[in-house]
């Protein structure tokens, strides 16, 4: 007998770390299939934050006293964990933000507003979340730069042959793409996009919000210039995210938010900026939240990102197969072996909101909507889809319940 040696995880056991599963919804156990929008939090993360507040709470960097030193150590320790997690060459390249959205806005404002102009082009993809689409569209408009969109094919995968056409009308200065699409689970070829971007003299901005929780990340191997993530999608708290940026670029950049902490000298006549990463962290940081993110990274590392990804892909494959067997169900996105743990679908004649509502009454939480991807919805010619997304605590029985719920919905609307 051959045993396949592959890292695996025991989702049923991990569930015990997540207090939220101790409740029932409408009298049924909670089947939470909306982790792409936000993840649940393990006790370990909640404990770390509580412990911070109860023993070390103070502002960071500035205090001479013990509590403040402790807080600084915890906060900077979290920064190091993020740096290691994405394989950043230098911890000073990691900037704490509110979430991925703000990280991307930081780049769009502090880099885009000061470096784009008429004749320049910004290229985004049709798969982008609004957070990596609208900031670039807005900055292009503000600066007079052009705005182009790389299309997807029938499988919801990027059609790279469109790149050169995108570049035809101007000087490409920014290429912005997500590593994993939150709407379809597509995994994008960032290495290729980055190489192309750099050949054009452009910067490569990666929205890693959906990748970081589920997929090993190495910013050096990706070859990108910026990488954004959100803690709340990766077992961490709301209120904090991170931007990794290439040091030379960050150093040459203007700051974004201005105020306390990010300065060196403030005079009536003029102000000089502080060093990295402080230059980009105006005001009191989300300190306890960063500590929570650090604890979340510890947790994910313990479980193993590869094991998490394999687990989710397995679940997604099963879900695709089972849902595909239901009459009237349309599936969107790439084949199971080329996608992350996200399954988008529609049921003929039934609006996703109605599907989700019926599922909720069975204790099954899925997302119904445009997933902040209206341009992609336009491409798919739908207003919305249903989406089930998995995480390390997802178990196969939840797929059974999802499938039963969809069948029940069809019966009600039949």
């Amino acid at each position, binding site marked *: 007998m051959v045993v396949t040696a592959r890292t695996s995880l025991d989702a049923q056991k991990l569930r015990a770390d997540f207090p939220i599963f101790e409740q029932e919804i*409408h009298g049924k156990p909670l089947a939470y299939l909306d982790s792409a929008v936000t993840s649940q939090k393990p006790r370990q993360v909640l404990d770390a934050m509580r412990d911070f507040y109860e023993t070390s709470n103070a502002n960071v960097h500035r205090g001479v006293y013990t509590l403040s030193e402790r807080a600084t150590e915890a906060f900077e320790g979290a920064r190091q964990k993020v740096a290691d997690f994405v394989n950043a060459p230098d911890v000073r390249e990691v900037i704490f933000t509110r979430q991925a959205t703000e990280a991307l806005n930081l780049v769009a404002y502090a880099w885009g507003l000061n470096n784009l102009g008429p004749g320049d082009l910004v290229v985004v993809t049709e798969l982008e979340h609004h957070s990596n689409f609208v900031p670039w569209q807005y900055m292009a408009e503000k600066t007079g730069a052009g705005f182009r969109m790389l299309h997807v094919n029938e499988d919801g995968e990027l059609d790279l042959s469109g790149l050169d056409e995108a570049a035809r009308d101007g000087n490409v200065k920014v290429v912005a793409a997500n590593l994993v699409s939150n709407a379809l689970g597509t995994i994008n070829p960032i290495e290729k996009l980055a190489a192309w971007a750099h050949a054009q003299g452009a910067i490569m901005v990666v929205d890693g919000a959906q990748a970081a929780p589920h997929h090993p990340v190495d910013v050096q191997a990706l070859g990108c210039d910026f990488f954004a993530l959100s803690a709340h999608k990766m077992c961490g708290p709301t209120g904090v995210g991170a931007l990794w940026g290439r040091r030379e670029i960050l150093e040459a950049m203007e700051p974004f938010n201005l105020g306390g902490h990010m300065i060196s000298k403030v005079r009536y006549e003029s102000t000089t900026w502080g060093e990295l990463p402080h230059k980009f962290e105006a005001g009191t940081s989300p300190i306890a939240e960063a500590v929570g993110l650090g604890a979340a990274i510890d947790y994910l590392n313990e479980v193993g990102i590869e094991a998490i990804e394999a687990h989710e892909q397995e679940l997604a494959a099963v879900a695709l197969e089972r849902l595909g067997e239901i009459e009237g169900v349309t599936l969107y996105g790439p084949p199971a072996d080329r996608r992350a743990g996200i399954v988008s679908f529609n049921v003929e004649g*039934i*609006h*996703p*909101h*109605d599907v989700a*509502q*019926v599922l909720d*009454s*069975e204790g099954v939480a899925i997302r*119904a*909507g*445009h997933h902040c991807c209206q341009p992609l*919805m336009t491409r798919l010619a739908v*207003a*919305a889809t249903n989406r089930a997304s998995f995480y390390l605590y997802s178990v196969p029985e939840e797929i059974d319940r999802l499938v039963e719920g969809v069948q*029940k*919905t069809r019966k*009600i*609307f039949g």
Partner: protein
Amino acid sequence: MAEDLYREVILDHYKNPRGHGVMEDADAQAEGVNPLCGDEVSIYVQFADDGETLEEVKFSGRGCAISQASTSMLMEMVVGKTASEIAGLPKEALLEEVGIPLTPVRLKCALLGLGVLKVALHRAKGTPLPDEWAGLDELELT
């Protein structure tokens, strides 16, 4: 449980919407989107000779059962009423017709059609559009 959510009458209106269609040369018209769900509703009104009474109403659009069924129900409610009567029509009147418990998100679905109609009348006749409709804060009433 789920069965209670979608009463027979809702499903009936959803599957057989009353007044569904497009009207050329409407006297009043507006469309609205609920960006959260992508529900879309367009409403067309033709007035009677008094220029006040709604003689005919139609709607088109797509969306969830609640938004489409409630708009269909609305069509039946408003024919024969005057523009100012509808401007004053409280949302509770429609919600009573709909007759199922609605969470805040679904409430926006249920009230989309009424909001659009009020906007159409406001534009055509200048009937008041009280602030509470701005309270449907996710609605883009264009």
